[in-house]
């Protein structure tokens, strides 16, 4: 079992969600995040003072899956991200999960994850 953490652009979430569903991945959790990376900072000007906003709004997507679904998730996310060379499209991190429990039933392991 893996936990896939991905930092994505907020506006891409609906499309990524669709791609995930196509690949039969129905469950995930998102949080609002801000990210600093190499993307071009947003210039804001407030009352005559310009400032660079380097911490940009991102969505942090968390998907726990059984090992055989990992590639499908990566595929779903990378398919959507426009590969137009723009910086700031984000990252995917894959981490090991040792155990998973479905709270409702107490069920454990690979059957609990989906």
């Amino acid at each position, binding site marked *: 079992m893996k936990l896939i953490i991905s930092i994505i652009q*907020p*506006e891409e*979430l*609906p499309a990524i969600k669709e791609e995930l569903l196509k690949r039969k991945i129905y469950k995930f959790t*998102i949080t*609002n995040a801000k990210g600093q990376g190499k993307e071009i900072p*947003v*210039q*804001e*000007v*407030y009352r005559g003072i310009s400032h660079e906003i380097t911490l940009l*709004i991102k*969505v942090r997507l968390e998907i726990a899956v059984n090992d055989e679904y990992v590639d499908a998730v990566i595929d779903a996310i990378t398919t959507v991200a426009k590969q137009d060379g723009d910086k700031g499209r984000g990252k995917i991190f894959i981490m090991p999960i040792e155990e998973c429990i479905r709270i409702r039933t107490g069920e454990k392991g690979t059957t609990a994850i989906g």
Partner: protein
Amino acid sequence: MGSLLMAQDSLSLEVNAYAIDNLFLFVCAVLVLFMQAGFAMLEAGLNSAKNTVNILFKNIMDLSAGALLYYILGYGLMYPGDGNGWFAFAGFGVSEAGVDPASGALHPQVDWLFQVAFAATAATIVSGAVAGRLKFSAYLIYSVVLTGIIYPISGYWKWGGGWLDQLGFYDFAGSLVVHALGGFAGLAGAIVLGPRLGRFGKNGHSKVIPGSNLALSALGVLILWVGWYGFNPGSQLAISGAANTNAVMLIAANTTLAAASGAVAAMLMAWSLYKKPDLTMALNGALAGLVGITANCDSVTNIESIIIGLVAGLLVVLGIKLLNKLKIDDPVGAWPVHGLCGIWGGIATGLFGGHPLVAQIIGSIVIPAWAFITMFILFSILKSVDLLRVSEEEELIGLDISEHKEEAYAGFQIFTVE
């Protein structure tokens, strides 16, 4: 501060009446100007958080740029004094000299103040309909054209004594002259612009882009309701003389009853259609009632006012449904409220107010058509030179950051998706 010693210079009944009438119109003008705050809050609340600065700015500029344009051009176009009934111009600016109290008139400066507040109202109705995708600079162009030219010209047709007036068309405080004009200008904008991204799904059904701050929207509607006591009663233009006093008081009560029944009717209608009491529908319903009673508030009875409001409240819910069907994206319901119910107000003036129905129907077609066609052309020209709509990316990020590089709710965490 002013010198009190001057206060009692040669009082007479006429001089006192002059003071009373001008005070009355001054107070009403202030109330109508306050409506700008109402529109700003209503529209800011019904749109996404990421477009809040933009919509507030549009409202502020409707009033500011509008006041200058209406001073320079608009007032002279709308009240040329005479003319061929279709188009005339009295010249720039407004007289600063007082008039003879004995003749029982208003000071031209307060008349201008009252009128400019109406012009700004007509303009600001549109900002809601085109919210979330129109370029700010395009809005400024639209706004000065409407306040400086389009509104005054059709205004002249009726209130300036032009051909619609001569025809016997009646529109006491502007269901058509002000509201339907704004509502149909907004409709033209919404159509030419097309819907916001994601508003209508590929599979054909409507999606939701919910309002971000309904507390402000409710505040806005209550401010508008209060401001309407300047709009309608003030349109009597005088309160001294028993007939005027009586008229003003009837108008104020009728305005209240129509707003109340509009809100109740829209709530019940939406409840039966959608199985839940919908706040934004009730808010639109109150405004619908107010728009509907505007043309005829001096000509109908209390009971008729309640009926006019009820019908307006039903119409506004159906109008919103209709726009969804037609895939026209009007984020705040500017057309259902001001356009549709503006026409209803004009017709109701014939049905209940004792004014000739044919003239009412003509006026209720001509003014909306004038607004829709001229504004459709303007927006289409702007579109053809690519000045109309922001880019897809700018729209997704929101107009506040892309156009103004400024957020309305800095620090607050806002979910930008779903």
